[in-house]
């Protein structure tokens, strides 16, 4: 972590105690006006939540379990309750976990969905006509992808994917 000093210089490095993160994301999880960090660690099957202390530092990371080898994470309000949730793609277990945000920087245990493919990359976007964010995962091992549509309440329903390659 490098602090921008405002004159195109950065402060010394602040190292967060998360080894070998496979993906990172930032957003204000506890609504205190400061961006917080989340990271997944593939080798540890963990997601770390690191809250900003508001003074240029971070609190100790809080760990949550994931599926096997998480590779991707996104922060988005999946259930439209005004609180940010976590979407984690677990590569080896071919699953997507939704961690419901509690609004205070904490998260509920995940609800886990079959992704149908190994999620190396994961993005969230509105892919059908409702306003709920849907999940796209891409598997580079066989150049395939899956779409998991949000039912509107943060649960994922029908898995849409291409014919041929994806259902194998």
């Amino acid at each position: 972590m490098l602090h921008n000093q405002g004159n195109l210089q950065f402060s010394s490095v602040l190292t967060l105690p998360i080894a070998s993160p496979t993906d990172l994301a930032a957003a204000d999880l506890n609504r205190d006006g400061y961006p917080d960090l989340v990271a997944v660690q593939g080798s540890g099957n963990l997601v770390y939540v690191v809250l900003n202390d508001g003074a240029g530092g971070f609190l100790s990371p809080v760990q949550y379990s994931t599926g096997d080898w998480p590779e991707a994470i996104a922060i988005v309000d999946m259930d439209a309750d005004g609180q940010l949730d976590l979407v984690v793609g677990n590569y080896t277990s071919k699953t997507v976990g939704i961690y419901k945000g509690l609004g205070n920087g904490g998260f509920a245990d995940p609800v886990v969905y079959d992704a149908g493919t190994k999620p190396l990359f994961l993005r969230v976007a509105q892919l059908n006509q409702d306003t709920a964010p849907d999940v796209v995962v891409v598997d580079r091992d066989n150049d395939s992808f899956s779409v998991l549509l949000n039912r509107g309440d943060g649960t994922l329903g029908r898995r849409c994917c291409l014919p041929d390659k994806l259902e194998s």
Partner: protein
Amino acid sequence: MSPEDFSIADFDGDGHLDLAIPEQYSEGFGLYLGRGDGTFTERQPYVTGGFPRGTSDSECAATVSADINGDNKPDLLVAKLDGTTLVYLNRGSCQ
């Protein structure tokens, strides 16, 4: 704007988001047009050429979608592991 592992944009201007996914084995990317219901058309392959097929340097590693030429259509930049970056200008017809 930052590099993305794959791109989501309305490439064909029909109001529905489409996917451009760099591919490890085709040395190109696949374009999938969204139908607006969460499903997509069949892959339209774009092969970038360059290194001989099968060498790791030919792999397409990342994409960015942005309106490069100011015609209000999202164009696509594709970064390859061989160090080249390719710009695909959107002609609007998605051919």
